[in-house]
């Protein structure tokens, strides 16, 4: 059989849409006491709910997908994983008590995250981590982590520096340099942009060091920004940060945390930003996860009414005047299909065209499978060539085929010039100029956690002791007892606040 199964067909009884449907068992955690509990996935009114039974705290329910069709179709959107070369822990107690990674894990680290500090200069109400302001990673520890990653992974597309706010680490720029390895294609930093907005030399240094910036930018305007990030003129900071990044042509990803009833009407604005600015390579939407020092107490929060991946997809369709459609988005088959959604867009002279509209799904999947970014290697070249042939012979059956053909030909010419061989990195840069991405990444919280999903997680927090912790498992079970953060809370220096 051919996996992933694209566009699977379903057979339903005549009353399947009007009555509740039990779909499957799923192991979750009780949102009150956090022990592992039995859950069932139920389809109701076109959505999917996780209903759990805790022996102590009784029954709870949470929305895990705002679109049952997306959910059902995503289940068979699966493909082989690949395992790391080395596992750091043994399987002894059973998932998720043996992180990470233990040999039971199904996917390597596509996206390792190194939290170099738990200090932060904001106190975001939606923060999903626990900033105790009492830890700065040492240089030795950082180098050890990088060495370990290379040993475990072989080759890495990206390494991400995060925190807290990583840019306030005194050795931040040195760390970026230390992370430069032939095996690591990109170094990225997740930041709120305060330092970028206020320190132009810092911004230049980022550019010089070829650092990719993931800029936190949930909305364009203050009211929503304040609800999510706290008091202050965030709008001005973001605008300034964008200006500086653009000035130095720093390759940027915009990260928008989408919370129901707060900024879910600004999805279209973020997409517009992506289309209008060349230096912005991609857009990442994160449906809000209600965990951590901020998120666990964030209101409004109704677990039965939250943003999920298909809700963002719908928002993208509704808020871009039909420029984007639901069918342009697909799950990512290499992680668990419940974790990621994405679309790739090809830049042509007259605008952006989503890949699924002109490239056969089979080829599309070859390109994106097992990696979160397009890698211009042999697979890619073959798929592009096949697509060109198909578009050429389809004689106008695919809209805009002429336009697309032109762009693809240009891409091939640039990436595979006749007179020399380019390095993969160079090809990546060229590709970046022609392709943009919209990702949707759904973190889990105490209400939506499913052991099923964590087993194929590819977003891992890297620990100095060599362990790699699947992100949501770390957030649920390990972060609060991480010995690095033990001890009293430190003194926070919050932007805009007088001491």
């Amino acid at each position, binding site marked *: *059989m051919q*996996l992933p199964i694209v566009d*699977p*067909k*379903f*057979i*339903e*009884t005549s009353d*399947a849409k*009007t*009555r*509740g*449907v*039990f779909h*499957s*068992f799923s*192991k979750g955690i009780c949102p009150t006491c956090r022990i592992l*509990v*039995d859950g*069932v996935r139920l*389809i109701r009114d076109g959505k999917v709910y996780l209903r759990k*039974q*805790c*022996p102590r705290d009784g*029954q709870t329910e949470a929305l895990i997908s705002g679109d049952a069709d997306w959910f*059902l179709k995503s*289940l*068979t959107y*699966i*493909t*082989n*994983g*690949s*395992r*790391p*070369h080395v596992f750091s822990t043994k*399987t*002894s*107690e*059973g*998932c998720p008590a043996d992180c990470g990674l233990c040999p*039971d894990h*199904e*996917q*390597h680290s596509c996206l390792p995250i190194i939290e170099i500090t738990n200090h932060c200069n904001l106190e975001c109400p939606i923060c999903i981590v626990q900033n105790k302001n009492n830890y700065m990673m040492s240089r030795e520890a950082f180098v050890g982590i990088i060495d370990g990653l290379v040993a475990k*992974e*072989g*080759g890495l597309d990206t390494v991400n520096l995060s925190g807290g706010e990583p840019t306030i680490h005194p050795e931040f720029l040195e760390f970026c340099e230390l992370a430069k390895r032939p*095996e690591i*294609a990109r170094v990225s930093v997740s930041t709120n942009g305060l330092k970028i907005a206020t320190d132009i030399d810092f911004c230049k240094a980022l550019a010089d060091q070829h650092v990719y910036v993931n800029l936190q930018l949930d909305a364009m305007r203050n009211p929503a920004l304040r609800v999510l990030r706290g008091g202050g003129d965030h709008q001005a900071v973001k605008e300034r940060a964008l200006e500086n990044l653009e000035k130095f042509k720093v390759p940027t990803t915009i990260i928008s945390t989408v919370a129901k009833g707060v900024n879910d009407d600004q999805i279209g604005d973020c997409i517009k930003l992506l289309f209008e600015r060349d230096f912005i390579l991609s857009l990442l939407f994160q449906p809000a996860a209600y965990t951590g020092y901020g998120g666990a107490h964030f209101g409004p929060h109704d677990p039965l009414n939250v943003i999920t991946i298909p809700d963002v997809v719908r928002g993208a369709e509704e808020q871009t005047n039909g420029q984007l459609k639901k069918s342009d988005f697909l799950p990512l088959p290499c992680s668990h299909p419940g974790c990621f959604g994405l679309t790739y867009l090809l830049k042509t002279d007259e605008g952006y065209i989503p890949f699924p509209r002109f490239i056969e799904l089979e080829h599309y999947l070859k390109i994106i499978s*097992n990696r979160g970014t397009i890698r211009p*290697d*042999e697979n890619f070249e073959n798929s592009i060539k096949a697509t060109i042939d198909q578009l050429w012979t389809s004689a106008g059956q695919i809209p805009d085929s002429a336009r697309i053909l032109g762009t693809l030909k240009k891409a091939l010419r640039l990436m595979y010039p006749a007179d020399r*061989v380019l*390095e993969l*990195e160079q090809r990546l840069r060229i590709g970046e100029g022609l392709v943009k991405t919209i990702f949707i990444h759904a973190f889990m919280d105490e209400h939506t956690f499913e*052991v*099923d999903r964590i*087993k*194929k997680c590819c977003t891992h927090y890297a620990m100095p002791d060599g362990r790699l912790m699947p992100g949501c498992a770390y957030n649920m079970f390990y972060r609060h007892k991480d010995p690095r953060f033990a001890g009293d809370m430190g003194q926070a220096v919050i932007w805009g606040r007088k001491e």
Partner: protein
Amino acid sequence: MADATASPRTRAATKHVYYSMTKSLCGTCKTAVDAKIVIRDGAVWFDKFCPTHGAQEVQVSSDADWYLDCLSFIAPNTPPKRISTQVKQGCPFDCGACPSHQQKVYLPVIPITSGCNLDCPICYTINKNEHAYHMSKDELQKILEHLVEDHGELDIINFTGGEPTLHPQLPEFLQMCRDAGIKRLTISTNGIKLLDESYVRKLAALDARIVLSLDTFDPAIDKVMLGANTIPTKLKVLELCEKHDVAVTILPAVAMGLNDKDVPKLLELVLSKPHIRSLELHTMTFTGQGGVGFQRTARITIPDLHRRIEEATAGRVTSRDFVPSPLAHPHCYSIAYLLMLDGGGYVPYSRLTSRQKVYELLQDSLYIEPREQLETVFREIIDDLWANPDRLPESERVLATLKRLIKEMFPSNGRVVPILERQKIAERASKAIYIHSHMDEENFDVSRIMKCCVGVPAPDGSNIPTCSYNVLYREKDPRFADARMLNRMKGAEHAAPDR
């Protein structure tokens, strides 16, 4: 094209694809363990890990296509009205039903006695012959009252044991069920007591249906599986049932490498005799006084039986002619109906109409009942074959058969045909093939048990799903837990050759 930045150690893709996770049981100690559902070499496996007994795996389907195809069938569920127990240890240790159970009882399977007159090596229950338990009329009365109260109108009920014909009051029990309004009364039996023709007459008068265990035509194999050559007895019993027009289902338990070769002949037997209504194939299951010690090489899965049926019918019936039951978990039952044609031959319902329609015909009952819905479907079939005769090679013969049936069931002149007689006419024209897969601790899947619609009811109104009962509860039930048998089972578990 050499890739200068590629690492010398690139990761290889895993040989399997991770699909999802469920909860199963350790094959040794029966504690709950996570089971990864993985697709490997076109088959589906549970990869399990018990903290005490380590890693273990079992093949749950020899064909991944079938496994995923079943999950593309969506049907609503009707949760039981009565919740008898609380969630304490989690599924499947709180049976009764507990709040996690998702489906009411459609087929009560009542063991009315613990005694049995055989000791089959494949026996999947536990039989107590010393101080054997016989259900009292009172107990049955209470059970019937609770069943009707909690689960509404009952289409069908099954009496089993041990060997139910050993219970002296079986005929009275059947009458009690009739009085309670239950339409289909079935008795699962080895047939030995039915050599007594007066007994057969009695059962015929009560319109009871016999589910006769007949596994093979090979005396040597019967010795291996049932401990004796029971074939001549059973063939004689079939003759007597034919003489007195008792409806029969042939039920073989199929073991790989032993009697799977008999499937063609068993099917032929069913198709050739009008009083034999259906063939019900059970996959070998390793519970009970015989099952726990039986050679594991006998494990067989539903798609293996599809293949046997395909071979037996030279492709006239294929796996695509089967559908799951909408009332149970889609992996539990695989069902095909055949229309027998005048003049010989047959056509699967799925080809007369569609898989979708056959699935819908099963959405209210485990067996297709001759109701309005069936008439509507056949009206559509008549019109469709009349208008598109080339769609099926047998169109003309199908229409002729249906015309004959209509004339017999709805004569315009002559006497009034009572509804029961009409049903008999309709039933005689069709044959059903049911494939049912009981679970043992190795292939236990809590998703399946949560949607179980079959159960062992008790006088206090509680109900335990059959597979849970077989694996966990029967051995603690003083009515059936025979000390000698339990000892034998323990010994067999330790000594079992190829586990």
